[in-house]
């Protein structure tokens, strides 16, 4: 496995997770959560788990992000922390 690629993607993953939890705008937090799902899908495709990457791309970065944004639109958009 190409370890340089792995290390770079993993560092991006940690940064995306921390940013998604620090944003006060809930719409932006949902979008960065979509970025997190896409990066994990890329990591799994590089590791050789193609079925898992396919499922995560369809479910995590597709449906999961959409229903989170739908909930944010129906309720409040700002959060206090």
């Amino acid at each position, binding site marked *: 496995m190409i370890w340089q690629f792995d290390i770079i993607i993993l560092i991006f993953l940690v940064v995306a997770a921390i940013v998604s939890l620090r944003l006060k705008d809930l719409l932006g937090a949902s979008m960065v959560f979509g970025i997190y799902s896409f990066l994990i899908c890329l990591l799994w495709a590089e590791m*050789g788990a193609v079925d898992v990457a396919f499922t995560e791309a369809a479910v995590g970065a597709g449906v999961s992000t959409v229903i*989170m944004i739908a909930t944010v639109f129906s309720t409040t958009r700002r959060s206090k922390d």
Partner: protein
Amino acid sequence: MDPIIANFIEENIVPKFNYWIYVILMMIGLYAMITKNNLIKKLIGMAIFQTAIILFYVSIGVKETGGIPIISHHGPDHHQEAEVHSEESSKNLKHNIIDKDKYANPLPHVLMLTAIVVGVSTLGLALAISQRIHKSFGTLEEDEILNELRPGGHD
């Protein structure tokens, strides 16, 4: 890069580096679930925790010499194997000998497919409950909800 430093990295850090990052991701998710006040942030923390655990399981099945777990009959290796085993009984020509070091371990992939789907079901139901809470209390912050449930006291 200096070859000594590259060697040091390859021997000591590369074999275990991935596990450290997975533990850090899990702890980020756990911290968010415990300390954040907003309900949606708690759900994002739960999702980060779940995907970090799935990442850990899938990386157990990785093999350095292996590719994806789909057997293909058009690769260059198969013709060589058929020639090598042609001296043996003809039964071996029909059942190709499959070298298990060339394929990644398929068992963690199967278990984690179920885990991803269960994770999205849980997320959908949790978002529905949080919408219902917002309809009853008007807010999604945990301390305001607790204040309305127990008026005046903080327990």
